[in-house]
Each structure stands twice: as C-alpha cells, then as structure tokens.
C-alpha cells in the first residue's frame, strides 16, 4: 500500500476540508446558528482520511459522536452536513440528527452515533451482511479509546473474529476520555494490545502520520476484503479542541495542546512529507486551501439559505409511512 502522490493530494485536500468545516461550524456556533454541541475532530484528521482513502464507495463506515471527519473523508457533501448542523430541512438527516448523527447512507456512511461504543456491534453486522450476500465490501468502525472500555467492544469484536468478518475496528486513541486522561481510567496503555483476547491482529500507529495510518489501514482493509477477518487498528492521536463545546480543559495544560498543534499537526506533517517529495508546490497548496475554503463558505451559505423543516416533519420517519406487509 504505497502512498502515491495522487492519493496524498486527495488526502491532503480532505484534511483541509475537515479542518475548515469544523472551524466554520465552531464560528457558526458562536454566532448562534449552529446549536447543540460539537465534538471537534481537528487534530485527528489523519485517521479518518488515511483509513477512508483505502475504501470503496460501497464499503461501510460507522462513526462516533466525533464524526464530521469520518463523513467528509467518506465523501459526504459539506453543504448538506453544514445544513444538518444548523437543523435545516436540507441537512443530511433533514435536521433531525444534528452533529452527533450526521450520516450519508448513499455513501454507506451509516452515521455518527451519540452513544459511545454503540457502533461496534452494528459494524460487525454490516460486515456479516456483506459476508452473507457474498460481496467483498469491507466495514470500518471508528471509535475512541474511551469506547474500548465498553462491553460492546468485547462482545462485538469477538463475533467479528468468530465469523471471520470483513471488518476493521479503528480505535482513535486521543489520550482522553472526555475530561479524563486515559491513564486515570484505563489499565492498558495500548488498545491494540487487547486484540489478543479476540485472536485478531492488533496494530498501533502514529495517528498524526497519515502515511502510517494509510499503510496500516491498507493492510487491514486488504486482509478483510480477502476474507482474512478483522483487524484492530489503533491510531494514537490528539484533539486540538476541548471534548465538546464549552470545555474549559482544566485537565490538560495549554502547553501540551500547543506542542501538539505546533509539532504534531497532521496537516503540517503531511504537507512536509509531500514537499519533501516535490508532490506539493506552494501554489498547489494555496489552491487546495482556497478551494476548500470556498467549499465551506458555500456550505454555510447553503445552510443559511435553506428552509427550516416543517412542523409535520416531527412525526415522519418514525416508522415507514405505509406498513408494506404483503
């Protein structure tokens, strides 16, 4: 799985799209346009992009409460996502889901999830579906280090292994479980080490280095697609913002945050990697950023101009409109 210049550029572009999307969403929150809460993915972009660059459109992805990045990397449109964050009728979920439920089923991105660890079982289920249908689709589940403590992790990964399902379990270990450093609540440092309990490979990579992520994910996706079963892939990463909006971050120093932003920003690291290989000119870089910026501005305009959902939408989509019994 060597990373080509072309894939690098695609990943680099997506990283900027994610970064700018979120910064804009944050700004719109301060303006009172985006409501609820945001779990910012900034700083972790290498994970979503590095993994998803290995996926086909028909592969399944399930996310977490922190899934803007997973959606965009899977190909979701930023305008409809932004509209979702505003609660508009044109949102990916018609404004019924919001940030914690963004989804694009047309891309088999089956959604963010507000319940920590709740995607692991369902992703095992999409993988089972592919196996039953005899397709070679791969399923990918993203989840945090905190989620690895949940029983769902234990129950579902064992089933993925038992039935040799085409699934990659991707743990985004950002060192924090909400407001608590991982070492205060966890008894093993590396989540990948737990793979042994399920007789599957466990791999840990530097989640700031998209090259590492891409290559490890490539192996895991290949293995899954070829019938070799699941992999538990841990990416060590870091979030640049608080856990969710309004987090005062008493639990970590601003020095720590600054250090990561300065020296471990996945976008900077990839830019450097590409420049070292002459894969990214100054000009290209500017164009990529300008285009991403334009896309996100357009997304905000789209959201702003979109209509609110009508009152009768409250009661639709609860169950199918007509019970097609026969």
């Amino acid at each position, binding site marked *: 799985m060597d990373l080509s210049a072309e894939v690098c550029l695609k990943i680099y572009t997506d990283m900027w799209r994610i970064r700018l999307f979120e910064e804009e969403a944050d700004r719109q929150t301060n303006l009172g346009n985006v409501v609820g809460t945001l779990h910012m993915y900034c700083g972790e972009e290498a994970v979503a992009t590095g993994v998803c660059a290995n996926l086909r459109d028909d592969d399944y992805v399930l996310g977490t409460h922190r899934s803007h990045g997973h959606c965009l990397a899977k190909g979701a449109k930023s305008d409809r996502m932004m509209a979702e964050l505003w609660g508009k009728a044109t949102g990916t979920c018609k404004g019924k889901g919001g940030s914690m439920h963004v989804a694009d089923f047309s891309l088999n991105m089956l*959604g963010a999830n507000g319940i920590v660890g*709740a995607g692991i079982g369902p992703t*095992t289920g999409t*993988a089972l579906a592919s196996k039953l249908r005899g397709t070679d689709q791969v399923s990918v589940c993203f989840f945090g280090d905190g989620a690895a403590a949940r029983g769902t992790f234990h129950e*579902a990964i064992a*089933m993925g292994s038992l039935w040799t399902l085409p699934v990659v379990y991707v743990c985004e270990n950002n060192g924090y479980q909400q407001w608590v450093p991982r070492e205060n609540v966890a008894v093993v440092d590396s989540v990948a080490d737990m793979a042994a309990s399920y007789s599957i490979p466990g791999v840990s990579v530097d989640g700031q280095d998209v090259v590492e992520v891409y290559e490890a994910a490539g192996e895991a996706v290949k293995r899954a697609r070829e019938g070799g079963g699941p992999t538990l892939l841990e990416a060590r990463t870091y979030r640049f913002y608080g856990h969710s909006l309004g987090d005062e971050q008493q639990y970590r120093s601003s020095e720590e945050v600054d250090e990561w932003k300065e020296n471990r920003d996945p976008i900077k690291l990839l830019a450097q990697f590409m420049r070292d290989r002459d894969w990214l000119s100054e000009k290209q870089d500017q164009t990529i950023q300008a285009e991403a910026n334009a896309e996100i501005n357009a997304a905000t305009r789209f959201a702003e101009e979109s209509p609110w959902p009508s009152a009768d939408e409250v009661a*639709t989509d609860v*169950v199918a409109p007509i019970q097609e*019994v026969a």
Partner: protein
Amino acid sequence: MKTMAFNEALREGLHEEMARDDSIFVIGEDVITHGGPYKVTEGVAERFPGRIFETPIAEAGIVGVGVGAALAGMRPVVELMYLDFVTCAMDEVVNQAAKMRYMSGGQGSVPMVIRLPCGVGRLLAAQHSQIMESWFMHVPGLQVVVPSTPADAKGLFKSAIRSPDPVMFFEYKRIYTSKGEVPDGEHLVPIGLADIKREGEDATIIAVGPMVEKSLEAAITLEDDGYDVEVVDPRSLSPLDTDTICSSVRKTGRAIVCGEDSAFAGAVSEIAAMIGENCFHDLKAPVARVGSPHVPMPFSAELVKHVVPSSESVVSAVQAVMN
C-alpha cells in the same frame, strides 16, 4: 386448516419466509442445537445452511449485529432466550434500532424482528419471568406485537419479518405448546389490527396474550350470571388499534383491560387511559385493570399462583364492573 402448536406455527412461518426471501437470517444463543430452546428454529440449519448463527452469550453484541445487518439491507430474526435478557441490549434496541430511521432523516431503516420469550413458564423466579411490553410501547420507532393463538402467531410473525421497521415480538412461553387451527396457504395478519375474539353486548374485555384464552373462559363462566361479554385481542400494542377497542367499548359501555404483566405502568394502563380519554361519555363504570401485583415473580408455586392473573380474576373484575 391444520391444527398445530404455537411454536410450530412460528416455525412454519419462519421457514416460509426464509424460503421466500434470501435476506432473512436467524441469530441467537443455542438456536441450532436441539432446534433452539423453543424448537422455533428447528430445521433452519439443515434447510438454510449458513443462514443461522449460534452466538456467544452477548445480547448487546447480538442485537447490535442485528441492527447493522438490517441497516445493510438484511432481515435478521433475533432470538433472545428470555425476554429478561433484553435488559442486556437496551441501548441497541432503544437508541439504535428504534431511532435509526428518525435520526438519519429516513435514510436508514432497521427491518429486524426480536423474539422475546416471556412470562412465567416453568418456575424460574424473578429474572426469568418478566414481560415488560409497556417499556417498548413507550419507545417510538418500535412495534410491539403479542400473538395469543397459533394462527395469529404465524400471521403476525410473517408480517413482522416483512416489516421495514423493528418489531418486538412477544412470545409467552407458557403457550408455546398450546394448539389451534392455522389457515392453510399464505397467512398474514397485519400489524396494528385488533381482533374481536368473541362478540358480546354487556362489557368489553381487552385481553393481551394468554389473557385472551383466560378471558374466553371467563366469558363462558359469566354467561351464568347472564353477562354477554366481548373479548378484544389488540394483537399489537404499538401501533394500538384504538378504533376497534373504542368501538367495542362504546357499544358495551364497560371495559376491563387484562394483561399478565404487572399492571402498574403496564400495557393495561395505556389502554385504560386511552379508553378513559376517548370513551368517557359512553362509560357506565370505571375502566378496570387486571394484571399482576407490583412484585417481582417469586419462585415458589405457592406464591406464583397469587401473582399471575387467572380466569377467575377476570370474572371478578367483570362482575365488579357490572355492578
């Protein structure tokens, strides 16, 4: 018409549907060996190899896998060995299966049936005898289905499997072996339609699950008092066929709502409240509820008999309402 047991009717329905639709599969604990705990999944492994999965003890995982498979277009039929174990998978049922269509703005759906063997059977005490229909009624996005006869079991099960949305399918363990006639050929009972199991003029008994049979017995006893009672079986509790229930109550002017589960905040409470709201001016007596007292299920047979409502409890409740 063939006569068959409740569990046989379910099995026949399952086999028919699996033959018709490749996307249906079975998943649960011990569903292959011995034909499954209730013999409902008997023969599936042989006839549909690769479409039945015997799992670790991991209810959250099982239902979670079901949710994902359903989102990806399959139709899982999930067996939980006892209703009581759904407590180990409530996030999957309530926050995932039930809400997926809504949260995704209609993009996704979860066509999954969860089979829930429930109620008192062999004496197994508090952790193996629960019912809890009202929990799932209270969750928007779920359908709650409770057949009382082999024919309804088959017809509702087939409809449940074909439903585009999740169905909580209640199977009272004690009636698995009870027999009844089942129509030949394709037999479907729509979800959301109550059934008048007996017509009558003087009072309406709304009876859930095994209380239907007990109410029909009670109806015969009550003939001696000169009372002609109607017995309505809602068959599905969500959606609830309020029209059929209310028409009957408007006709008779009296309602007795009967379920085996504990009455307090139970299914019978919703039905009673709904009747009170809609039929107030037709009611000649308070709407009565018959159910278990608000206690866990004890073990001793001597205690159990004071918990589970009997045909006699129905008779007394009707008599009280008639006076």
